[in-house]
């Protein structure tokens, strides 16, 4: 006897399951199948089981069950608390790109209108300059500058939300490297579960794809760090120590991600020891 979606069948005998589609979808979820010696079902057995009367009825019931099951599975996948954070991080990164691009363009445009204007030797940060353009710029230029400003404001809000949510979804990782960077790591890995399954060496170079593959393909040196470069311990470290800092940090992050996935709460005893280990590199040990 082999268990199928409609019941247990084999050797010309058949034991029907509850024929209600929802119950059948439930059954599909719980069935444990081993592939050793598995025999594909004969749909005629479903008739013998009394679950349907012909091929069309068979397919229509099977489809109904599979739709219920698939919709359930999609809901389960999305229910994870990391899915929305994923979208938020990606939106944030794309907004950064758009804002930079448009700011550059608006500044260039402004420069053409004011032949004597130059950005050289000015201390004004880009966003202040955009604000001035949005106040003074006539016509479309002013309007675009206003939009860039508003986008920047939305971006700031979003960044705060990402950071806040990351401390809930990734408490340990966030504690080590900050909410924003932790969220970026997770987004690059494709979610919390995939991140928790990555080896430390992969986390270390997450986000350095181009450099990594050019290393694998040619003889260029391997990348020392990817996204984790954004952590101050890495980019503030002297150049000859950066690789080491990145490696140790990635090692601790790999553990943190696993704690985040399997426990979901901050683990102070781990965090203290990890922080201490990371802090030690730049100082005494080197």
């Amino acid at each position, binding site marked *: 006897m082999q268990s199928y979606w409609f019941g247990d069948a084999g050797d010309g005998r058949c034991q029907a399951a509850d024929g209600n589609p929802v119950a059948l979808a439930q059954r599909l979820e719980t069935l444990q*199948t081993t592939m050793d010696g598995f025999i594909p079902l004969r749909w005629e057995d479903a008739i013998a089981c009394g679950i349907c009367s012909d091929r069309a009825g068979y397919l229509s019931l099977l489809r109904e069950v599979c739709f219920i099951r698939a919709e359930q599975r*999609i809901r389960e996948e999305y229910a994870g608390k990391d899915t929305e954070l994923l979208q938020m991080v990606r939106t944030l990164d794309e907004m950064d790109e758009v804002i930079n691009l448009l700011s550059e363009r608006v500044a260039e445009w402004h420069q053409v209108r004011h032949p004597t204007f130059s950005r050289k030797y000015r201390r004004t940060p880009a966003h202040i300059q955009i604000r001035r353009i949005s106040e003074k710029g006539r016509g479309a230029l002013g309007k675009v500058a206003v939009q860039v400003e508003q986008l920047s404001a939305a971006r700031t809000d979003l960044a705060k939300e990402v950071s806040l949510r990351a401390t809930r979804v990734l408490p340990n990782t966030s504690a080590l490297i900050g909410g924003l960077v932790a969220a970026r790591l997770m987004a690059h890995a494709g979610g919390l579960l995939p991140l928790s399954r990555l080896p430390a060496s992969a986390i270390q170079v997450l986000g350095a794809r181009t450099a990594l593959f050019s290393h694998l*393909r040619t003889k260029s040196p391997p990348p020392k760090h990817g996204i984790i470069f954004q952590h101050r311990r890495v980019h503030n470290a002297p150049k000859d120590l950066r690789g080491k800092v990145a490696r140790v940090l990635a090692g601790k992050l790999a553990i943190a991600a696993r704690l985040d996935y399997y426990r979901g709460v901050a683990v102070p005893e781990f965090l203290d020891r990890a922080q201490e280990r990371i802090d030690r590199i730049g100082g005494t040990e080197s």
Partner: protein
Amino acid sequence: MIRIGDVLVSRGEGGVYGERMLGGARVWDPFRSKLAALYYAGTGIELAPEMKVLYLGAANGTTVSHVADYVEVVYAVEFAPRPMQDLLEVARRRDNIVPLMADASRPEQYAPVMEAVDLLYQDVAQPDQAKILIRNCVFLKPDGKVILMLKTRSVDIRKSPDEVFRETIERLAAFGLEVIESTWLSPYHKDHAAIVCKKHSKGVA
């Protein structure tokens, strides 16, 4: 396969993904679908109305919808939730698509709904495509056929596409499949190859 002039088409309800229509039939674009590319670049397997197909890596259901126009039933397996949402929408309007949200490398997840199929079609972006294919051969009828779309760049980026292509063919042959056609899908898809196999009628594991 149905061709109008030299344009590959399938007959069914249009508007699935904004495909062009030609004489009331849906144009099956080789640049969008790897299976269509196989019918242009090589021979492939003739799809017939009584066929049952197991389709691994169904994605958004674009190619699935064309296959469903030709055959009796398509068991469409897709793993990721985002494309699955689209696949469900396609399957809702075609009563011969059975949507399965499962991992193609773990056939036990969908084995309880599987009947024996005439054609096993695989188009997944996974490193071990050959292994996934071999695991799924259990669903194949004794005289069943296999089409494997090999994304050589997903298998191993360090090896040359030719190397990956050759090694995969060797592995399938070692398993007991008879390779009847193998072709690159250029100019339609870069670094993609199609391998068409036959299960030996004596029956393999």
